[in-house]
């Protein structure tokens, strides 16, 4: 997504990226970025919360107008109702380490099978 934004910018189209994965977007490097510190999935605000969505779109439009140099990030003022998602997402610990290793092996077995069929 960030790569597409960069391509548009390089060809004369102004862009703003909206997202929740701050490190991925900023490592790639984009012209304008509206960051909302939410779990991945709702970069434009909570589901059914029109007011919040209006505010976040408003931030994106303001950034289009006002940014004067690339890599301009703004963070919206919203918070998720709790912080449990931060540690829970893609967590690796003793409770799931073996299951993850097995899932990886199974995935590689399937991939090898598909390759053989093709």
């Amino acid at each position, binding site marked *: 997504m960030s790569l597409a934004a960069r391509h548009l910018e390089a060809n004369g189209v102004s862009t703003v*990226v909206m997202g929740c994965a701050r490190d991925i977007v900023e490592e790639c490097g984009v012209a304008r970025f509206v960051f909302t510190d939410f779990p991945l999935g709702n970069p434009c605000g909570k589901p059914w919360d029109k007011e919040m969505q209006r505010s976040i779109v408003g931030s994106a439009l303001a950034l289009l107008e006002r940014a004067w140099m690339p890599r301009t990030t703004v963070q919206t003022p919203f918070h998720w109702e709790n912080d449990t998602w931060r540690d829970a997402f893609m967590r690796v610990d003793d409770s799931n380490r073996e299951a993850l290793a097995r899932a990886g092996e199974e995935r590689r077995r399937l991939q090898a099978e598909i390759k053989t069929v093709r």
Partner: protein
Amino acid sequence: MDNLRSYRSFVSYIDRSREYYAAQGYSRPYAWAHHDDVPFTPLQKPLSGCRVGLVTTAGRTSAEGLIGAGGLMRGPYAEPANPPPQNLFTNDLFWDKNATHTNDVDSFLPINRLAEQAAAGRIGSAAPRFYGVPTDYSQNRTLQGVAPQILEWCREDGLDAVILLAL
């Protein structure tokens, strides 16, 4: 100040996904795009005269590709913005399915919110179509195939600015 912290607040998905896939036995981590230089195009006219488009990583339907061990393969697409889609396909994408959901399209593709901005005169108009891009493992396929296609559609639709939203 509100409080003191000895850690960074926002999640690093580069770190998190590397450790997660390492635990699955993938020892060679994914190499994320990194650039020192960033292209920049200032808005060429007042926003109230601009036509603004949207790009999403969501898909149109689940039937577009096959979900298998190799992941979902799909290409870029352009769809009419009116009538706005009631739902889009996101199940194959990397997002937090335990913490939230994507049943409200405007939470990840603000197609109705943007139309409101056009009706209010904040922007000149909303694009007649929105575009979809795959989240491709291959940066080359994105750069050589997808990105030029999106640019072509932007030109066909006369867009001045684009909002891109990653799930």
